[in-house]
């Protein structure tokens, strides 16, 4: 049976890519910092959690709990990893975008 197609928004793509980049250290704080550093986008914490929650509901992300840490007041971190569905959605988005970009270099510029 063919898996259901998942479509990603721009922020969702960014978040999935950042989670992939952060590898094993992808929890909300570094994700937000990386988003600001690499994409120049500063989003509210609440919006970040909402987006991560949405990606998890879509099946693009999976989360696991770490150990409780003293610097967090005895609370654990939630680490995110990209699922195969998320990878497939990313590839699909990339393919679509590249297809749309193709042939428009003259108008939009090479960079």
């Amino acid at each position: 049976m063919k898996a259901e197609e998942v479509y990603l928004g721009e922020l969702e793509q960014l978040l999935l890519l950042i989670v992939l980049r952060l590898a094993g250290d992808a929890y909300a704080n570094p994700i937000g910092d990386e988003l600001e550093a690499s994409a120049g986008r500063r989003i509210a914490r609440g919006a970040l959690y909402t987006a991560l929650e949405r990606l998890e509901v879509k099946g693009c992300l999976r989360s696991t709990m770490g150990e409780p840490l003293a610097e967090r007041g005895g609370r654990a971190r939630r680490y995110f990893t990209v699922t195969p569905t998320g990878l497939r959605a990313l590839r699909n988005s990339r393919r679509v975008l590249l297809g749309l970009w193709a042939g428009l270099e003259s108008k939009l510029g090479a960079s």
Partner: protein
Amino acid sequence: MNPRPPHLLERFLDRAVASSPYREEIVGDLHEAYAAVHARRSAAYARGWYALHALRLAARYLLRTPAVFPKRGHSMDRLAMDLRLATRSLIKRPLMTATVVMTLALGIGANAAIFGIIDALVIRPFTMRDVDRIVMPVQTVPNEIGKRESVTPANFLDWRRDLEGKSIQDLAAFEWWEANLMGRDEPEHALGFHVSSRFFDVMGVRPALGRPFLREEEILGRDRKVMLSDGLWRRRFGQDPSIVGQAVLVDGAQSEVVGVMPPGFDFPMGAEIWAPLAFDPKTPPSRTGTSLTVVGRLAPGRTVADAQAEMAVIAARLQRDFPRENRDRGVRVYTVAAGMRDVGLDAILSLWQAAALFVLLIACANIANLLLARGAERAREMAVRLALGSSRGRIIRESMLESLLLAMAAVPLALAAAWTFLTVIRSFMPARLIRFVAGWNEMAVDGRNDRGDAGARRRRGPGVRGAAGAADVPRPGRRRAEVGRPHRQRPRPPASSPRAGRRGNRAGDAAARRRTIERPQRDALSCRLAGLRSERRPDVQAGASRGALRGYREPPAVCRRVDRRAERRARCLRRGAGQRPAGGRLEHVAPCRDRRSADSRGDAGAGGRLPDCHRRLLRGDADAAPLGAHLHRRRSSGHGAGRRRQPVDGAQVLARGATRSAASCGSAANRGRPSSASAAT
């Protein structure tokens, strides 16, 4: 040691984000980020940073609207959802929201402040008990319409003699007196009044210490008595409780202190000392010198108009008996508030109120402009929502809720603005003049919602409170309690008891309200309510117990349960009678409720028209068919046959092609599908 964020804020955030599956992580991430900020910047900055982020997160999760809502949720759920949407919509446009709220607050605040002034100076300038019962008869000046004049001592004595036991039960007079207090301390000038013997009874105030003046103290030579105000007693006599009976030096002569008035009583014009108004028995009182101001207390059940009528008769007699002194001189009776008010004050304050109203109108016009502009800006949003299936009513309701929220947000600010306005206005009045403006010190933004009693009782001292409470006017709560009494047969405490005094408060009212609706009345009320719904309640028509009716609530689940029970009984009956109804369309046969009610009223012949099973039901036969079985019969069309039975309401029945009459029967239509239901089950 790791720095810890503010504990209370962290707890608040923990509670606020409880709806999120990432609750622990949200709090933990912010805790961790706080430590990082603390290391980079100062502790104060980190605390501020934490507070900002915690509050933003809390606001987001507290106001978050669930992504998916039940389509037919409870109306309160929908209202709460709309409230959240409206709140978010307002927060999204903080500048517009702040402008509207501030504009509205200033407009309402100005009106509240001006009304506070009018309330204090015109409507309720005095705080005596039953101040509306205190009247002020004044002499009208010859050839000058509307001008008032003080009363001559002779006329006052005539009025008092003639009015005794009539519409004005007590009549008193007072006269300006500049009292000079000497001895004990430095000489002091105090504003005082000579008052006649029943003056304090007219005012409805008893001395906190001592006794009021006596009638025999009105005779010259026996009038060396004084009554002190609470302020003077505290200031000059150090709250000496043994002051009563002692002699003090007033105007160079020894006067005996007969009492001390309770705190807050300074009528008239901030008086601090009172002495008896004395008449010389050897010389007739003056008929020309108008020096007295007269006040009186209306007898129970009598009105100002009654007093005016009687005073007119007396004035006519005085004109006849003393034509030279009383030529064209009449009498006009005012309430004390109207009589003591400066002529023209009403008009000036009305002008102020009108100006404030215009300010509010202008504010409303500005707000309307802002909201219209915002509406144009949101046209696209509205179009999208309509396209997505939102109804116009829903959008209008949300707009109304937004306006309501704006108004509610403006109210506290308006109260603050009104308080500020009044404080500024009060500060403009010189202190030495304030005593001459009755009610000036009472100008405030308060929550009084009744006339006189509560506000007066709050401001009066304890000495007055007891006297006022004993003679309190019956309140609605008390009347309601009386309505309910015949069913309780509980002895009523005497009016002077503390319990009776407590009845007037809010808790007493609530208790009285509960007592009021006694069982027979509640039953009747329940029956009426049930009668309204009886088209959907066959058990009501079938004579279900009143206890069951009282327990009836609107939610459809209850109706369905009742319907299924009735349906089972109908099915059993049909089986017993060999009737197997085929699936078909429903038809409403007759308004059986009317028949039943006619029968229960005992109308001749009405019972004869009632079907047998109805009569059995009314008698309470357990095996009788429910009313639903007779309300509907099936036509032999196959419409709806074989469908799974579902509870349906009137609109759904209409949608399925049933007749309007069947639709009006609501859930009764559910019972009209027993064959299909039984077929399905």
